[in-house]
C-alpha cells in the first residue's frame, strides 16, 4: 500500500514538474533576474549615470509642473520621488477610463527621459505574466506555480531518505546520476526557500486565482471589498476651478505625521485644479520591514487640511502583506537581494537538472525505439527553454550598449531579445541529436554574459566597474558583478560537460535500463 502511494507520488512529481518545466524555468530565471530588476533598469539608462553623480534637484512641485506642461487636462496625477534603487523620478497621469501614462524623468528631475528602455521590467513581466498583456499570462504562471507546489510536496514524499540523498553527489559517476544528484542537492538545501517563494508568489494573486471569498463574503462586489480592505478616501469633483495647494509642504506634514524619519514615495492628486481636489501622500516602505504596508495621508487639495488617514490593516490583511513582502524582497537591501539571487539560481538548477535527469534517463530506451523523433524534439526544446533564455537575456543587456543612439532602444532591445531566443532555439533543435548540444549552448551563454562587463567598459564613460566600484555605486556595479557570476558559472558547467562522450552516456543509459526504478525511492 505504502509502495503504491510512493509510486503514484513519483508519477505526480515527474509529470507535474516536467510538463510545465519549460514554463517553470522561464518563471524562475526571469524571477531571479528580477531580484535586480531596478538595478538592471538603472544600468540600461547610461545617459542618466553622469547626471546622477551630480546630484538631483527633485521636488514634487517641480515634477507637477512638468505634468501640467505635457498633460494640462487630466483627472488623476501620480508623482514618484527618486528611490535608492530606482533613482529617477516618475510622473504619470490618466483620465477616467484611460490607460495610465507614465514617464521617467532625467536624474535632475527637470526633463522627461528620452528614448527610454524597458530595462529590468521585461524580466519582471516575464516572471509574473510571461510578458502577455492580458490575464492569460497571469493564469499560466499560476498554473505553473501550482504544479511547482505539488512537485515540491510530492518530491518530499518520495524522498524518504532525503537527507542521506543530499550528501550523495557523484559528478564523476554516470551522467544520468550526476543529473539526479545535482537535482537532489539543488532541491533539498534550499527547499524552504523554494516552498516559500512558490507559495508567496501564488498568494500575491490569490484574488485572481481564487476570488471565492470575495464572491461569498462580499456578494461578488469587488468595489465594496476593495473599499473595506484598503480603507481609502474618495470624493467626486466639485466642478468649480480652484488653485492646487503646494505639494512639498503637504509631503513634509505627512512625513512629520509618520515620524521616525519615514519618507514619502508617491504623491497622487485627484481632480487637480478642482475645488474638490485631493492630495494623497504615500509612504515609502522602510528597509527593515518585510510586510509591504501602505500608509497614506489624504489632504484637501485646496486648503491643505488633513481629510483622512489610512487605518492599520487587520490581521489577515497584514499576513498577506507579510507573505507578499517575503516574495517581493524589498527589505534588507543588497544582502537580501544577493541571497535571493543565489536561492533563485538554485531553483533554476533544480528545474533544469530535473528536466535533464528525465531526458537522459530515457535516452537509451527511446533512441533504440521508433519514438526517437519525439525524444530529440523534447531534448532540443529543453535547451531552447533553458540555455536559449539565458543567451537571449545576455543579448538583451548587450544590445543596450551596442545599439546606436538614434534607434528606438525599447523596441530594438526587445526585438533582439526574442530574435536571439528564436535563433538559439533553432540551433538547439538542429543540434538536438548531437552530444555537444549543451556544451555549445552553454559556452555561447558563458561568453555572452562574461562579455557584458567588457563591452560596458568599452562603450561607457561612467557606468563600468572601474568607475562604479571606486564610487561605491553598488546598484550599477551589481549588474556587472552578476554578469561575471553568470559567465563563470555557465562556463564551469560547460567545462564539466566537455569530456562526456556519446558512448559513455550510452553505457550509462544501458545501466539505467536494467535497474529503472532503483534510484527512485
Amino acid at each position, binding site marked *: 500500500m505504502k509502495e503504491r502511494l510512493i509510486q503514484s507520488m513519483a508519477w505526480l512529481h515527474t509529470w507535474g514538474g516536467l510538463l510545465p518545466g519549460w514554463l517553470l524555468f522561464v518563471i524562475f530565471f526571469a524571477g531571479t533576474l528580477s531580484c535586480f530588476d531596478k538595478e538592471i533598469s538603472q544600468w540600461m539608462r547610461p545617459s542618466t549615470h553622469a547626471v546622477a553623480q551630480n546630484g538631483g534637484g527633485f521636488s514634487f512641485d517641480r515634477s507637477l509642473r512638468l505634468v501640467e506642461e505635457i498633460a494640462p487636462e487630466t483627472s488623476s496625477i501620480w508623482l514618484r520621488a527618486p528611490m535608492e534603487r530606482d533613482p529617477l523620478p516618475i510622473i504619470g497621469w490618466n483620465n477616467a477610463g484611460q490607460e495610465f501614462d507614465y514617464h521617467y524623468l532625467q536624474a535632475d528631475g527637470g526633463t522627461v527621459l528620452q528614448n527610454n528602455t524597458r530595462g529590468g521590467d521585461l524580466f519582471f513581466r516575464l516572471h509574473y505574466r510571461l510578458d502577455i498583456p492580458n490575464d492569460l499570462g497571469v493564469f499560466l504562471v499560476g498554473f505553473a506555480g501550482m504544479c511547482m*507546489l505539488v512537485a515540491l510536496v510530492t518530491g518530499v514524499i518520495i524522498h524518504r531518505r532525503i537527507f542521506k540523498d543530499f550528501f550523495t553527489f557523484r559528478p564523476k559517476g554516470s551522467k544520468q546520476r550526476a543529473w539526479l544528484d545535482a537535482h537532489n542537492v539543488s532541491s533539498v538545501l534550499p527547499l524552504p526557500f523554494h516552498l516559500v517563494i512558490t507559495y508567496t508568489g501564488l498568494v500575491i494573486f490569490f484574488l485572481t486565482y481564487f476570488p471565492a471569498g470575495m464572491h461569498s463574503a462580499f456578494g461578488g462586489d469587488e468595489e465594496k471589498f476593495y473599499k473595506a480592505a484598503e480603507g481609502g478616501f474618495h470624493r467626486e469633483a466639485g466642478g468649480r476651478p480652484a488653485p492646487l495647494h503646494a505639494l512639498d509642504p503637504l509631503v513634509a506634514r505627512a512625513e512629520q505625521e509618520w515620524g521616525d524619519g519615514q519618507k514619502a514615495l508617491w504623491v497622487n492628486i485627484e481632480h487637480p485644479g478642482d475645488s474638490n481636489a485631493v492630495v494623497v501622500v504615500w509612504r515609502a516602505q522602510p528597509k527593515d520591514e518585510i510586510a509591504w504596508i501602505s500608509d497614506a495621508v489624504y489632504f484637501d487639495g485646496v486648503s491643505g487640511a488633513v481629510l483622512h488617514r489610512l487605518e492599520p490593516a487587520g490581521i489577515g490583511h497584514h499576513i498577506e502583506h507579510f507573505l507578499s513582502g517575503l516574495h517581493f524582497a524589498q527589505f534588507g537591501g543588497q544582502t537580501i537581494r544577493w541571497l535571493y539571487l543565489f536561492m533563485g539560481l538554485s531553483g533554476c538548477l533544480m528545474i533544469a537538472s530535473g528536466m535533464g535527469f528525465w531526458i537522459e534517463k530515457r535516452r537509451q530506451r527511446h533512441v533504440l525505439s521508433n519514438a526517437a523523433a519525439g525524444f530529440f524534439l523534447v531534448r532540443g526544446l529543453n535547451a531552447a527553454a533553458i540555455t536559449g533564455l539565458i543567451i537571449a537575456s545576455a543579448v538583451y543587456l548587450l544590445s543596450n550598449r551596442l545599439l546606436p543612439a538614434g534607434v528606438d532602444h525599447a523596441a530594438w532591445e526587445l526585438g533582439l531579445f526574442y530574435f536571439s531566443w528564436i535563433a538559439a532555439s533553432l540551433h538547439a533543435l538542429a543540434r538536438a541529436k548531437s552530444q555537444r548540444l549543451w556544451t555549445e549552448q552553454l559556452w555561447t551563454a558563458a561568453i555572452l554574459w562574461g562579455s557584458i562587463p567588457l563591452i560596458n567598459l568599452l562603450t561607457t564613460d561612467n557606468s563600468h566597474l572601474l568607475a562604479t566600484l571606486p564610487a561605491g555605486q553598488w546598484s550599477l556595479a551589481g549588474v556587472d558583478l552578476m554578469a561575471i557570476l553568470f559567465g563563470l558559472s555557465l562556463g564551469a558547467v560547460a567545462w564539466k560537460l566537455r569530456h562526456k562522450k556519446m558512448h559513455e552516456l550510452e553505457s550509462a543509459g544501458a545501466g539505467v535500463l536494467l535497474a529503472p*526504478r532503483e534510484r527512485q525511492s
Partner: protein
Amino acid sequence: MLEQTQIKESLSAATVARKSKPLWPQVLSRVLAAIVGGYALTYCVTAFLAVYLPMSPVDNVFVSGMLAFAVYTALVIYAFAASRHERVWLHYSLSVVVLAGLAFLPGGG
C-alpha cells in the same frame, strides 16, 4: 487489487505488455479530478471559510484566500493517492455541494 497491480506495473518501468483493462481512462479521470475537481472544491472551501471564519469579513477573505493554495495542493495529492478514482469524484462532489450550499445559500456573509 487488480487495479493496484495495474498502476504499479505501468507506473514503474515502461511495460510494453498491457493487462486486460487499459490504464489511461483512470489516469485521465484522476488528472481531471485533481485539476478541475480540485479547483472547484478549493473554490468552495475558500468561499465557505470566508463566510464562517471568526475575523472581520476582509480578514476572512485574505486568510481563506491564502489557505486556498495549501488546500488545492492537498486535493491534487489526494486525487492520486486515493485507492479508487471513483471515490475521489464522490468525495469531491459531495463536499462541493455541502460547502457551496453553506457559503452561498444564506445570501452570503
